[in-house]
């Protein structure tokens, strides 16, 4: 087994009390407590948990948008977690990409300019990277929509734009927070297929959080199950369905039903 690229050790998180009203009361509850797992390079890890299990909080801490209260995160051999909000380094030098639940596209930029935004701010916009952006836009079926503003796109198109905005600058690790939760079932299946096709090309390390067990099985090499708050790892399942997988017929594949039942039993 390859060495872990990202390791979460005894992570704990609780939010600071609000000033004033809550002061002097008992401390706020733990959202995440004593949570540990690791991810290998090139692995597609899915994390399943019920709503309110602290999934987004976990990814925010890994992406360094938020601090950890206890525990540490080791990335590429170095401890990167911090307790000091001012010492946070979101995206740790562009090596951790984050596709959030909301697409968070810039409403004043069209599709192409949203995709190019990352390259622009990183000072890496040149003919080669621009060609890569255009290739990705074509790959997810957004050709012809380059000059549309986000509000003119459908929900699925916005998700695709948000996805390739992260893929275009090629971070070695990508966090995904229920990116396909808000779209209809058919679009979701298509987006999953698109994501797997893109992943087969580059084999990034992906941590994909979802509440949908089918999605977790269809996409992942391994699925972790989170408990209710405070979040811990309740179970771990290797998914041995061979790749490339046909997401549309995932139910029919050998082994799907068995693993589905096992995970469902673990999800409280």
């Amino acid at each position, binding site marked *: 087994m390859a060495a872990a690229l990202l390791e979460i050790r005894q992570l704990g998180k609780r939010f600071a009390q609000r000033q004033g009203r809550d002061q002097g009361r008992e401390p706020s509850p733990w959202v995440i407590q004593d949570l540990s797992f690791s991810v290998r390079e090139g692995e597609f890890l899915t994390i399943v948990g019920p709503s309110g299990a602290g999934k987004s909080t976990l990814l925010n801490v890994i*992406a360094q*948008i938020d601090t950890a209260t206890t525990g540490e995160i080791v990335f590429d051999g170095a401890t990167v977690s911090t307790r000091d909000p001012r010492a946070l380094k979101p995206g740790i*030098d562009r090596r951790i990409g984050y596709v959030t639940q909301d697409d*968070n596209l*810039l409403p*004043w930029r069209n599709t192409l300019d949203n995709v190019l935004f990352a390259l622009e*701010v990183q000072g890496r916009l040149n003919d080669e990277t621009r060609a890569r952006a255009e290739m990705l836009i074509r790959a997810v079926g957004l050709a012809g929509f380059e000059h549309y*503003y986000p509000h003119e796109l459908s929900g699925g198109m916005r998700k695709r734009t948000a996805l390739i905005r992260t893929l275009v600058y090629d971070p070695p690790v990508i966090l995904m927070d229920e990116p396909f939760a808000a779209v209809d079932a058919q679009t979701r299946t298509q987006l999953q297929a698109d994501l797997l096709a893109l992943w087969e090309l580059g084999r990034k390390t992906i941590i994909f959080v979802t509440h949908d067990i089918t999605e977790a099985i269809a996409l992942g090499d391994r699925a972790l199950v989170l408990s209710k708050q405070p979040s811990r790892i309740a179970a771990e399942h290797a998914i041995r369905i061979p790749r490339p997988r046909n997401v549309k017929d995932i139910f029919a594949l050998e082994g799907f039903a068995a693993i589905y039942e096992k995970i469902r039993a673990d999800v409280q």
Partner: protein
Amino acid sequence: MTDIAIDNEPHANVAWRKWAIHGGRLALAAALILAWEYGARTLGRLFFAPPLDVLERIVTLAASGQMLTDIAATMRVSAAGFAIAALCGVLLPLLLRRSLRATEAVEPYIMASMGIPKYALAPWLILWFGIGDLPKLVVVTLVVFYILYITTFAGIRGVDQRLINMARVIGASERVIAREIIWTSLLPFFFTGLKIAFPRAVSATIVGEFLVSTEGVGRSIEHARQISDTTGVFAGVVIAIALVLAINGIVNLIERWALRWRPVERDMQI
């Protein structure tokens, strides 16, 4: 039923609405001018100068070049005061954004200074700043500053933190975040502020010119008032209104261009 008609004939409907609005405006203008004319006839020329007399006076003023000189003088002070106020009113919130503590410390003083009745201090402003453009400039700057300060701050508080987080993860510097995300997000607020502040700047300049000046639209009005020339006062008022409408039109054009990405701007176009 109307909904169905809208769905079936969107183009016809849009054209019809356009004409309805223009027609309505014209009818309203005609009604106002008629009421004005009626007032002049029943109450006398001292109360209301007849519209045609006012128009004639404006033509005379325009022909003699007096109108252009007045407008230039008024605009000079308005624009300069506006520029200073806009710079401070936008930059100060952008700087204070960095520190919650500084904001909380400064805010009560800014709000308190907003309560100062500026025109009541006019004699002292003249005493302090002389009888040139400076006292008027101070009044205009003060009037405009608060409007832009408050709208800009409202815009900053409304910026979507998730967009900022996204930009940080991508590797954007704080400078890029300020320029791209914070500035663009607060543009709609900024334009709202502009639309309130610009007419106020012009009005403040004109009131300032009543008190102290040798030129400008306000001085023309004041001069006419002193010799009981109602027509002259009305002509000045009409010029002031036209000036504000023209500026508002320009601000609207710039806004439409700068905010062309906003869905509301498109949907609201007639």
